[in-house]
């Protein structure tokens, strides 16, 4: 194994975030009033790393003796994580004052979680996947329970921790079986062994356990139990992060094991499994979301449904599917960040419920926020001119190419169902008079508004030029 200085240059995004964490820790412990500085520091750091990742996107290489890869899709994931985290930093600035979690550790944990995600996306070795996953998950467990005095937040943290660590056991056991079957933890050598004559049954069992573990992290149907409670109980800015870039990170690990399979002899090995998972997630998420009265719970169930749409791309097991998922993840990240940003502004102090009814008459009280939320609801439901539509379009096309027509039809049907609950919010905002009881205070926050507007611009831009982005993803 030779370690050269180019290795370090190639993992510069990771080193920058790592150095950022150390600087933040040092600042936090020596200064009493560090939170304001740390929020802007994390924003600028993640923005810089996001820019650098896109700048070096063509620099495809393998570093540290095949433990990690950089460039190409990995850098696109870096961009999604870091740009998302920068928006989360903007959204958090005023929110964490309101939620009474005004501590510098919030931003340190945010940066550490992003570092974990980046490790996961760049890993080409199962051990690295595990390290990244744990770094991300532990930060999320802590962040979910950051409102120490709020019972719901504590419940969210405990549920997420217990179920999350249980499924981590599945992932490790899966990795152990894969190692037992193939004698290697490196993804490339595992799959080169797979394309040889016969594959031991142990390999399939191991991969199945691995997939189950990550289906928990992406919130797919039979493993979704934690999602509504955790998303509702966690501080809204944390929910925004978990549901968007956290999901993207888990998908990057699933793509890691699916991408080598695409080029192999038998690409559709796991298609039946993913088809069932995606169909169940879409239908379950869309139908249960209809009955929700709390906006965070509704967005949680919609998150389950969106995991289902993304799994269509994995079920297709072709290049269109893979690039479709990456596009969908980016689109979903920015539209959900915007939606949760608005929710974080409108939700009351303390235990006030974020019911959908409290959005009544928002168009009179704050037309700008109502307009932006309407935009995010349109794009989440997948209406044409925005990014959400093209995300769905690419995964449906992929599944048609793979000859899997009925799952695309099911996806379209479930989109139609989901349009009801997304558009219901718009109806409540514009056509319902606000009564005094629900007339809660909207937080004035320029930084949050900036974050929401940036998300909106990205969502519109991705809807206008989806082809060029998909071509960029496809070129690797």
């Amino acid at each position: 194994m030779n370690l050269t200085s180019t290795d370090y240059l190639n993992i510069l995004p990771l080193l920058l975030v790592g150095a950022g964490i150390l600087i933040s820790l040092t600042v936090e412990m020596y200064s009493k009033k560090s939170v304001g500085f740390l929020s802007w520091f994390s924003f600028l750091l993640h923005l810089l790393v996001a820019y650098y990742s896109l700048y070096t996107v063509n620099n495809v290489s393998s570093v540290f003796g095949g433990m990690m890869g950089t460039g190409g899709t990995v850098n696109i994931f870096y961009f999604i994580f870091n740009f998302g985290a920068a928006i989360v930093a903007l959204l958090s600035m005023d929110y964490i004052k309101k939620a009474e979690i005004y501590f510098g550790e919030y931003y340190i944990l945010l940066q550490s979680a992003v570092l974990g995600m980046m490790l996961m996306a760049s890993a080409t070795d199962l051990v690295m996947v595990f390290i990244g996953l744990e770094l991300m998950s532990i930060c999320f467990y802590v962040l979910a329970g950051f409102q120490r005095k709020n019972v719901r937040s504590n419940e969210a943290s405990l549920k997420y921790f217990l179920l999350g660590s249980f499924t981590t056991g599945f992932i490790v056991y899966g990795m152990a079986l894969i190692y037992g079957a193939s004698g290697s933890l490196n993804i490339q050598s595992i799959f080169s062994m797979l394309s040889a004559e016969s594959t031991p049954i142990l390999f399939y069992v191991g991969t199945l356990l691995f997939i189950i573990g990550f289906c928990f992290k992406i919130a797919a149907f039979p493993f979704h139990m934690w999602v509504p409670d955790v998303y509702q109980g966690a501080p809204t800015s944390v929910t925004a992060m978990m549901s968007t870039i956290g999901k993207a990170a888990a998908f990057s690990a699933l793509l890691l094991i699916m991408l080598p399979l695409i080029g192999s002899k038998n690409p559709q090995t796991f298609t039946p499994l993913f088809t069932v998972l995606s169909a169940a997630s879409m239908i379950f998420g869309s139908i249960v979301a209809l009955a929700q009265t709390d906006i965070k719970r509704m967005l949680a169930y919609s998150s389950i449904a969106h995991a289902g749409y993304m799994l269509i791309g994995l079920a297709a097991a072709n290049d269109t599917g893979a690039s479709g998922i990456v596009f969908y993840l980016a689109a979903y990240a920015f539209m959900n960040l915007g939606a949760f940003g608005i929710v974080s502004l409108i939700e009351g102090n303390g235990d006030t419920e974020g019911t959908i009814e409290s959005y009544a008459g928002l168009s009179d009280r704050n037309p700008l926020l109502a307009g932006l939320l309407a935009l995010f609801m349109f794009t989440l439901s997948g209406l044409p001119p925005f990014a959400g539509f093209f995300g769905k379009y690419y995964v449906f096309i992929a599944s048609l190419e793979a000859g899997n027509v009925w799952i695309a039809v099911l996806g379209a049907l479930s989109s139609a169902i989901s349009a009801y609950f997304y558009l219901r919010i718009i109806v409540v905002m514009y056509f319902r008079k606000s009564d005094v009881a629900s007339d809660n205070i909207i937080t004035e926050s320029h930084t949050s508004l900036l974050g929401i507007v940036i998300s909106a611009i990205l969502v519109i831009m991705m809807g206008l030029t989806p082809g060029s982005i998909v071509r960029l993803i496809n070129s690797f």
Partner: protein
Amino acid sequence: MIETYIPLFLVFGFAIIFAAGTVMSSGLFGPQRPNEEKLSTYESGMKPVGTAFERVSIKYYLVAMLFIIFDLEVIFVYPWAVQFISLYTDPAIGTHAFYSMLLFLVVFEIGFLYVYKKGGFKWD
């Protein structure tokens, strides 16, 4: 074959005799002045019988957690120290062996400093 295990059996036998002998000899030769405290089970100063759901001060958990962290540091540093000469003389690794551990320790000590600054080592 079995002969090679004879020393092992001897050690086991000696250990059993020694352990049983010392415990019994204290009963045989020592003065016996029992009271209730002496006869109860020794549990490092804790009450041996009581509710299992007793509330424990959070400081214990903090100490336990910090102990794990520093224990892990030793796990990484010890094999590195043992192998350092052979790593250093390997032309493919060289000074890299030194600097990577230095980097690890710097990262680690910043965490250590953080715990110190936040009062993690204060008992009161």
